[in-house]
């Protein structure tokens, strides 16, 4: 009920503001936007664009989990490895998207690889540093206890490390899911060949502002939907650890 009321307030404010501005080129009314949305949804190419964006998003999330988590884990365990890899991760974090963009366009031209690589590199450092912090905050008393009882390393990893890292893995997934669609849309806009970002780029060329807003609404829906799914999946996984 409160969500509905919140949505009502949002769309009501949007309507009032657009009527006050009365310029569709800056802020179209919700009705104009929804009519553009209906038109977009009638077009079958929209779905392939959406699928392309979703595929890129999941590819980035998969890469973050496959690379960010193990690298963060190893960096958290060993100060030497941390000091060796930290400069690289910090450089990746500081490089502006526009520089990556120039690089991928020279390498691959426009296509799906550019958005995936840029999205991955944008989200990788934060996932690595989050996991490093997680490993460093593992209860030293528990690690001493397993040392006293000579618990095999594989069991220590399963019982102590994974369990301790769950909140940090959750944080990585939350942050990545929250940001991945924004990153994918920007990079598709700049160097993609298909996807919602490319659709926004075309709408911009035709100065079709309601269409831009409509595609943005779709992206917002995608973001909220995946966040919900990710939260559900995480809570199912963490239940195994009694969290």
């Amino acid at each position, binding site marked *: 009920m409160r969500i509905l009321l919140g949505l009502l307030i949002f769309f009501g404010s949007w309507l009032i503001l657009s009527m006050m501005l009365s310029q569709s080129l800056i802020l179209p009314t919700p009705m104009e936007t929804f009519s553009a949305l209906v038109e977009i949804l009638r077009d079958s190419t929209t779905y392939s664009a959406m699928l392309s964006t979703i595929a890129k998003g999941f590819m980035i999330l998969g890469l973050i989990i496959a690379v960010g988590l193990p690298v963060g884990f190893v960096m958290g365990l060993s100060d030497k490895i941390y000091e060796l890899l930290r400069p690289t991760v910090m450089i990746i974090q500081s490089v502006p998207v526009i520089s990556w963009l120039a690089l991928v366009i020279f390498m691959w031209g426009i296509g799906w690889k550019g958005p995936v690589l840029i999205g991955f590199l944008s989200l990788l450092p934060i996932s690595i540093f989050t996991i490093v912090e997680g490993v460093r905050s593992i209860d030293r008393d528990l690690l001493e206890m397993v040392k*006293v009882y000579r618990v095999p390393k594989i069991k220590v990893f399963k019982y102590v490390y994974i369990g301790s890292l769950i909140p940090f893995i959750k944080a990585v997934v939350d942050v990545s899911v929250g940001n991945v669609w924004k990153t994918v849309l920007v990079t598709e806009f700049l160097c993609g060949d298909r996807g919602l970002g490319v659709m926004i780029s075309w709408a911009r060329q035709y100065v079709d502002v309601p269409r831009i807003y409509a595609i943005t609404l779709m992206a917002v829906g995608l973001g909220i939907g995946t966040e919900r799914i990710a939260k559900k999946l995480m809570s199912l996984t963490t239940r195994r*650890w009694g969290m």
Partner: protein
Amino acid sequence: MILKVEGLVKSFGNFEVIHHWNLTVEEGEKVVLLGPSGCGKTTFLRIIAGLEKPTEGKIEIGFERLGFVFQEPRLIPWKTVRDNLRLIEEDEGKIKTILELVKLNGFEDHFPSQISGGMKQRLNLARAMVVDPDFMILDEPFTSLDIKVKMEIMEDLMEIWEKRRFTMLMVTHDVKEAVYMGDRILILSKIPSKILREIRINFIRRDITNRDFLGMESRILRFMLE
């Protein structure tokens, strides 16, 4: 002889904590190290358990399976009572027996946050028992418990000891605990700590209001306060 310590010194930088300790523990003995807080008792246990290295001295270890009852229970919060033991021992039958022994049967599927402080300490004890220890270290295991729970656990521990007869090395700063638990009490000084005196306990001491018990308690207290 299950443990022999000769000329043990432990310093942290220039700060000497343990000063030339010599002691021997025989198989099946219950030895209590009694001393003021911060005198290096826990450090000594950590050296025996291999968590710290001595600065000087020689330690001969004759035990194979070590049980360690930590001062704070050190349980895995996201694992159930049963799984906290499964970390150490996979044998379900053994886990069941130990849980019955420490009176935690019926709480197998509870998480540490769902059990009381006394039960957590019982689980800490169960974890030490499940390795079937021939040497058990107890690091002030009753400090955080109220007197009633403390007495219950101490009584149960003594019953378990009667059945299993493992060697016990306990540290405490509580005279009552020391007299109740030990066959032999080693009284320690402040840091740099030395072993000041050795006292043998020869009476049956299940009753803490017993005249012998109270006499021994006050004798040790007087010595410690001198």
